[in-house]
């Protein structure tokens, strides 16, 4: 090819050689960071953006000089929304790519699928999504919300501010909604809500025909007491649900829906008209006016080259998780898994809502709780924010099975399910 200058190829080679030589000269080469998020399949809608934010954080850290003077190298794999594939890819990350830490998973079932792998190969996983709790693993750090940091405060908000007395707990039929609703039901009953004032409804994944359920909610809400829907409906089924509510004339002022899985990313591609005024409970909203968040958004928009790219709660969780890991590695002076796991407890880093997130002994973190109302532009109008940070509870105190269970990974307990009554580890099944 005539148009390639002769010297160019040679120069490229020299640069490559220099680069390789340069890394070889550094201590032990780059630190590898595994990213285990689905880039294809049904979950790609939510998880792709988490890969992007991780790449941004890693690039920024490298510009600051890496960690321990070593460059960070992202290793991205695609588990394709396929749960068994999550376990395979996790194994590949840990044993083939020898990564020092993994950031990944979205659904609970994918997390459960990789748990045995992380236990067996002793890795570190940062899990960024709000989940049902009832778990604490030595190898996993949960940077998303536990039920007491999202579901319970959301219900409290509705009770106190909106004066809600009747409850519809609507969810998709899988583990997260089932467990969350079990906790909420126990909590509401404890608060004196009668059986007849709670309606629990489950729908299959991707449910699209909401006619009769919405009509039932409408009827349930016409008994003279203020009614609200607590929705653990999973991603894709939400839009037809809200659309049916609007079509049947149910307004947010009459029967508000508070959702735990609807965020900015999910709202980005849809007509928000029917959703305006409905609520969501998260620990982060893009509309937060703190300087930390504004700076983060500026970097995020610059990195993606898209000024309209949304930011959401699990992204903040990765932001916190990544910074905690960096801080722990720097404090420990090594990337050795066992040392880092022990060092992580007690690490504090700033979150994006103006507070300090702390890694607790149960591997969950402290978070503020925010309630937002959906606006026409797909953003949230923050109507309530908890005054202090709420520590994440791995085991719910409202469930009979886990009331006496705690998680504490510091010696002497060093256990994820310690029964305080019998004083033994392994108290929960």
């Amino acid at each position, binding site marked *: 090819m005539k148009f390639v200058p002769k010297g160019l190829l040679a120069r490229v080679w020299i640069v490559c050689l220099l680069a390789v030589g340069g890394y070889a000269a550094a201590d032990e080469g780059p630190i590898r960071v595994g990213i285990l998020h689905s880039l294809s399949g049904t979950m790609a809608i939510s998880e792709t953006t988490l890969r992007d934010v991780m790449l941004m954080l890693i690039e920024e850290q490298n510009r600051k000089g890496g960690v321990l003077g070593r460059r960070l190298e992202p290793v991205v794999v695609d588990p394709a929304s396929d749960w068994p594939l999550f376990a395979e890819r996790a194994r590949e990350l840990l044993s083939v790519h020898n990564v020092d830490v993994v950031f990944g998973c979205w659904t609970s079932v994918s997390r459960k699928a990789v748990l045995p792998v992380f236990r067996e190969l002793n890795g570190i996983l940062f899990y960024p999504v709000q989940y049902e709790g009832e778990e604490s693993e030595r190898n996993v750090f949960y940077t998303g919300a536990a039920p007491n940091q999202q579901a319970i405060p959301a219900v409290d908000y509705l009770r106190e501010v909106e004066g809600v007395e009747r409850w519809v707990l609507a969810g998709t039929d899988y583990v997260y909604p089932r467990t969350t609703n079990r906790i909420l039901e126990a909590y509401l009953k404890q608060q004196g809500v009668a059986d007849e004032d709670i309606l629990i409804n489950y729908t299959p994944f991707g449910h699209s025909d909401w006619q009769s359920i919405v009509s039932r909610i409408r009827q349930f809400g016409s008994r003279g007491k203020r009614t609200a829907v607590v929705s653990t409906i999973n991603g894709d089924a939400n839009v037809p649900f809200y659309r049916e509510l609007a079509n049947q004339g149910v307004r947010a002022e009459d029967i508000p829906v508070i959702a735990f899985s609807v965020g900015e990313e999910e709202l*980005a591609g849809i007509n928000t008209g029917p959703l305006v005024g409905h609520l969501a409970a998260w620990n982060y909203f893009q509309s937060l006016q703190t300087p930390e968040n504004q700076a983060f958004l500026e970097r995020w928009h610059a990195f993606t080259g898209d000024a309209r790219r949304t930011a959401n709660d699990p992204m903040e969780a990765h932001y916190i998780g990544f910074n905690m890991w960096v801080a722990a590695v720097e404090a420990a002076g090594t990337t050795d898994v066992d040392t880092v796991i022990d060092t992580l407890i007690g690490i504090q880093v700033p979150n994006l809502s103006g507070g300090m997130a702390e890694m607790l002994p149960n591997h969950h973190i402290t978070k503020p709780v925010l309630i937002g109302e959906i606006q026409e532009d797909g953003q949230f109008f923050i109507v309530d924010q908890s005054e202090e940070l709420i520590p994440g509870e791995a085991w719910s105190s409202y469930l009979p099975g886990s009331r006496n269970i705690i998680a504490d990974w510091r010696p002497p307990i060093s256990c994820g399910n310690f029964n305080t009554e019998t004083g033994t580890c392994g108290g929960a099944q």
Partner: protein
Amino acid sequence: MVARSDPRRLPRILSTWLASLVLILLGATAFAAAPAGGLTAEQLQRLGERNLQVVETAVADIAASGSPAALEVLRALQDGRLYRREADGVMLVAVRVGGVQLYSDPLASTTGEPLAEAEVTLVRVSNRIRRALSAVIASLSLDSEDPDVRFAAARQFIDSPDSALLEAIETALVDEADDRVRTALEVARAASIASDPGQSEEARSEAVDRLAAAGSSRARRVLLGMFIEEGSELATRRDAAVEVIDRNLARWQQVQNLWFGLSLGSVLLLAAMGLAITFGVMGVINMAHGEMIMIGAYTTFVVQGVLRGISPALAEVSLLIALPVAFLVAGLIGVFIERTVIRRLYSRPLETLLATWGISLILQQLVRTFFGASNQRVETPSWLAGSMEFGQIMITYNRLAILIFALVMLAAVILLLKKTALGLHIRAVTQNRKMAESMGIRSDRVDMLTFGLGSGIAGVAGVALSQIANVSPNLGQGYIIDSFMVIVFGGVGNLFGTLVGAMTLGITTQLVEPSLGAVAAKVLILVFIIIFIQFRPRGLFPQKGRAAE
């Protein structure tokens, strides 16, 4: 901000509430000081405060100001059209004229001017403010020209009965000409009398009867919310009235379930119709059928984008334009798939199944690569949004349109198969390929066109389904199993069977769902079909005669 809660922190909550009470009182005195009948810039600016209590009193003040601009401002606030100019904090009402946002100061009588997006910020409202707004807007719009607005106002009065409004309702009733509004106002009057303990026993029980006659769940809510002494005569009357309404509602419930069933059936019919051709008529186990629907939906999205670029006015007809485009796009992709893959596999059904499944994955990932994994926004034209009331049930326009559209499509496909040359050829080839070939029909070409037709119909279904489903790469997967179920149940190769199959499955699902839940309904339907297939393996309307072999 209200303190987060827990019984131990009750004192703190109380103090917050006290603080807010003081604020309300302060707001009230501020109002008393404001010039009567006038609307001040300061009042408007308070709408932009972060403290919701302040905003709430501001709304009440503005409503009470009696200024003609008050309704305009409050409406704008409710619809998200009220902006604050960053430079001087002046509140501006935005109106969209021909795609341009014009901002005008409601207190000055100037015409609107366009402003840059960065110069203004939207005044956001929460549910609490929205509730306050609905109430005051209703009371301000009773004398509106538009009967729909008056009707909405009357509705609002029934929802939140208030004895203070009784006089306004009586006045409005005197010269109300519209029957619909009149009836609503009468119910509203009954509601405010019934829920006012200050009214005489006689007036209240008359009102209870009027509410019972209304028979709606709205009236029921009013009745249940009444303050009544337990055991009094009025209470007995009230209970009887509630019972009357309950019976009425239960009857309508049956009608409603039937309607829901028909609606779900029409969605199934629409989704399955293309498959009725490719699988039913041709016998190709086409796992990529759902993706053809998805491609139709994405075509709608693209067509809408292009039309928006040409002229925003075309948005209303974008769906109609998308229909033929989606037919062509999905049809051509179908022809391409038939030419390259399916043609080679006609005698091997199992391999066809695997190959088309592979194609479906490829198409999904292609769309994901080009359009991204997230949902795409397909606009609903205004003539498809909303609903109408039919007795005590709601009929939404988009569902009604889909029902009609599905039936029209079915009729068109049947006509095409029965009355056109292509239809004749298709039937000839599927019944006896050898014989058709020897009569001079190019069976190869007919195969291609048939598969293209089936795919095109799926594409058209995608246009309609984009109105009720999420337009995402996974759209098709949600329909593929249901589509096969409909075809197998109705009888392979019989379009009438597809209709009956879709409607039966739709209605059964909706009748079972209210009592057993959506998950159980799905399971039951599957079990039912499995058992049904054991006894009638060829479905409801099996092919007869030689075609069946």
